[in-house]
């Protein structure tokens, strides 16, 4: 099996190194790195804006580019946290705790250097995990009938909504709302228009780009306008020569990096626990097992290395369930899944065999992209630091332009722009009521497939609901759902110490209005 994986990987490099694919991969990581640095722009909004522009492209370069934005943004996100104490990107919020004290001590460059090394180590492990695990998962998943797919989706939806930020109850409510939004449009089997209110433009359903840009673009601008601080650039001076960490620092960071990587890759396998949770968990663990926990929060290099490695390994591992099972773990993956569907590729276990070029090309492009990012970040650190000082008053109007034209370009239809504005207002209201919008997108993308499989499995069983329990794999997934719910009730009633400790760390992280939705 290992030898096949290596041959396939070799083929993947062939795909990814085609000049035109390579160019789009580079473009993706460059744009990703850029928006990662900019406060108030996240990969979700960026991928949604870029998505309509890929309609004319071949699927392979399109997916390579859009994925590049996601992992590229992770490289940029840490810069904001370390140099400005601004957690613009939730996965890197915890890096502020030790990254910014290091910057104040004049060791910001070292922290960035360690971050890049940790990122590369974490990402490499995540990719390796994907190479060997995804084909294995596919073998299992090919046995799945509609009942199993249905139960598995239920696990994905429940995990995505309960393990994310905020109240789990509200998370589930948002998932259900997402499923309802996914219903808008003509019914697949009967063609009956549902929830369209007589508007012909809605017969095709709500546009995924309008939903993502409304929730993660316009709602976010409404939330953060005149609500942001002018950034303090006092400490943000870093040269290339500062970025090479000393041997002592490397030695100190080595084991935390490995532990972070392993924790991150574990988190990636549990649906719903994306990079943000991975980084918090690994920081808490590292602090706990450290011999000198009092150094954490005052510039411990381990407190930078561990969460960063874990974030990156989790980001790459995130692709495993999406690509092998067609079940996205978080918002960005839901969006990428949407992109695959738009490009006419049916996500699911058959993807690896039917579209080997996409799957193996993507994996190979991860390696290439990560190497490009390392090369990109060291000499260009000065440019990125300059970008940090772009004031928000220039940023959000320009972003609004990209939102408008991006949505328009998707279908050359102004109706969609209006749709985005309405969704943005609704998104802001939900945000004000402490609903986190991420599960909406998850529910929206999975909704139609969930309904289709649910109908089909009950058609096969002639309306017998026990089919979901009688089939062992499906019963196993339902058991996980029950465990998830019971665990949430337990946490709510008993408030276990571990969760409280993690919450305490979360509270230490400085808050910005940006970090609400920029996932």
């Amino acid at each position: 099996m290992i030898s096949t994986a290596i041959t396939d990987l070799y083929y993947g490099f062939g795909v990814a190194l085609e000049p035109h694919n390579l160019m789009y991969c580079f473009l993706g990581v460059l744009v990703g790195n850029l928006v990662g640095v900019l406060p108030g722009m996240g990969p979700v909004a960026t991928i949604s804006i870029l998505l309509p522009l890929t309609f004319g492209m071949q699927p392979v370069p399109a997916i390579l580019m859009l994925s590049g934005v996601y992992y590229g943004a992770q490289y940029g996100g840490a810069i904001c946290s370390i140099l400005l104490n601004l957690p613009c990107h939730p996965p890197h919020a915890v890096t502020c705790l030790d990254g910014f004290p290091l910057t104040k001590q004049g060791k910001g460059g070292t922290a960035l250097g360690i971050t890049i090394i940790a990122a590369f180590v974490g990402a490499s492990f995540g990719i390796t995990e994907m190479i060997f695990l995804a084909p294995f998962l596919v073998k299992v998943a090919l046995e799945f009938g509609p009942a199993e797919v249905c139960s598995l989706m239920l696990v994905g939806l429940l995990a995505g909504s309960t393990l994310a930020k905020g109240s789990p109850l509200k998370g589930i409510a948002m998932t259900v709302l997402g499923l309802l939004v996914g219903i808008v449009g003509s019914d697949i089997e009967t063609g009956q228009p549902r929830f369209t209110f007589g508007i012909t433009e809605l017969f095709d359903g709500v546009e995924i780009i309008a939903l993502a840009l409304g929730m993660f673009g316009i709602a976010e601008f409404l939330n953060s306008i005149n609500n942001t601080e002018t950034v303090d650039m006092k400490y943000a001076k870093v040269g290339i020569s500062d970025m090479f960490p000393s041997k002592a620092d490397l030695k100190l960071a080595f084991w935390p990096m490995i532990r972070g990587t392993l924790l991150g890759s574990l988190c990636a396998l549990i649906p719903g626990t994306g990079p943000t949770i991975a980084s918090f968990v690994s920081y808490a663990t590292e602090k706990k097992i450290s011999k000198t926990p009092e150094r954490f929060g005052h510039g411990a290099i381990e407190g930078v290395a561990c969460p960063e490695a874990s974030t990156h390994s989790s980001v790459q591992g995130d692709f495993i369930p999406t690509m092998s099972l067609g079940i996205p773990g978080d918002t960005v993956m839901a969006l990428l899944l949407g992109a695959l569907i738009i490009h006419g590729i049916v996500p699911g276990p058959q993807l690896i065999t039917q579209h080997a070029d996409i799957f193996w090309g993507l994996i190979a492009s991860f390696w290439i992209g990560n190497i490009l990012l390392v090369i990109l970040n060291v000499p260009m650190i000065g440019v990125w630091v300059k970008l940090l000082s772009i004031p928000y008053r220039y940023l959000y109007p320009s972003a609004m332009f990209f939102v408008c034209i991006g949505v328009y370009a998707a279908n050359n239809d102004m109706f969609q722009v209006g749709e985005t504005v309405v969704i943005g207002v609704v998104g802001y209201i939900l945000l004000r009521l402490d609903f986190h919008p991420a599960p909406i997108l998850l529910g929206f993308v999975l909704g139609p497939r969930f309904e289709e499989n649910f109908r089909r499995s009950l058609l096969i069983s002639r309306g017998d609901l026990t089919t979901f329990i009688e089939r062992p794999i499906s019963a196993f997934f339902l058991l996980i759902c029950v465990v998830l719910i019971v665990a949430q009730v337990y946490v709510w009633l008993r408030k276990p110490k571990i969760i409280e400790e993690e919450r305490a760390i979360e509270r230490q992280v400085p808050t910005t209005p940006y970090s609400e939705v920029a996932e």
Partner: protein
Amino acid sequence: MAAISTGPVTTGRVEKNHTGDTPLQEKIGPGIKLKRDYYAGGLMLVLGVGAAVIGSGYKFGTLARMGPGFMPVMLGCVLAFLGLLIAGTALASSEPDNGKFLPDNPQWFGWLCILAGPALFIVLGIYAGMIPAVFACVFVCALGDKTGTYKSSAVLAAGVTVFGVLLFHYLLSIPFPLIRGVNL
């Protein structure tokens, strides 16, 4: 009513920041505390019931042969139930909640500008073309910032328009005439 003092950054989400120094409890009448979670639960209840009612207008079918109305009704009921749960748990919880829906410093003008931008983009896009639409959208949005002046907004809008035309019209050639009626 307690005076609420807020820091510049955390203004939007004060109640989550437990380390903050702000007095959060705000009593509305004796003994009754209005909580935001009541609105949240209420909204979900309304949406759920609404979906179920509209959904019941479509054919429901049976379990073996589900009609198009099956899922909407089911999901609507689940959402309504979740709404009740959200409001119910808020009743039981003793966590402080300031009960206000609007943020402490509502940005009516800023919000208006952000929403007016895309509205102008739509209208001018349909009747006048890409250049006026993009310029108006960015200009109006930029005015929403409290430090934005007519001049700074116009400069930004002009810059974005030039960039946008080069990228989207010439490089990506999306079908959107620069100025309607004039062949550029």
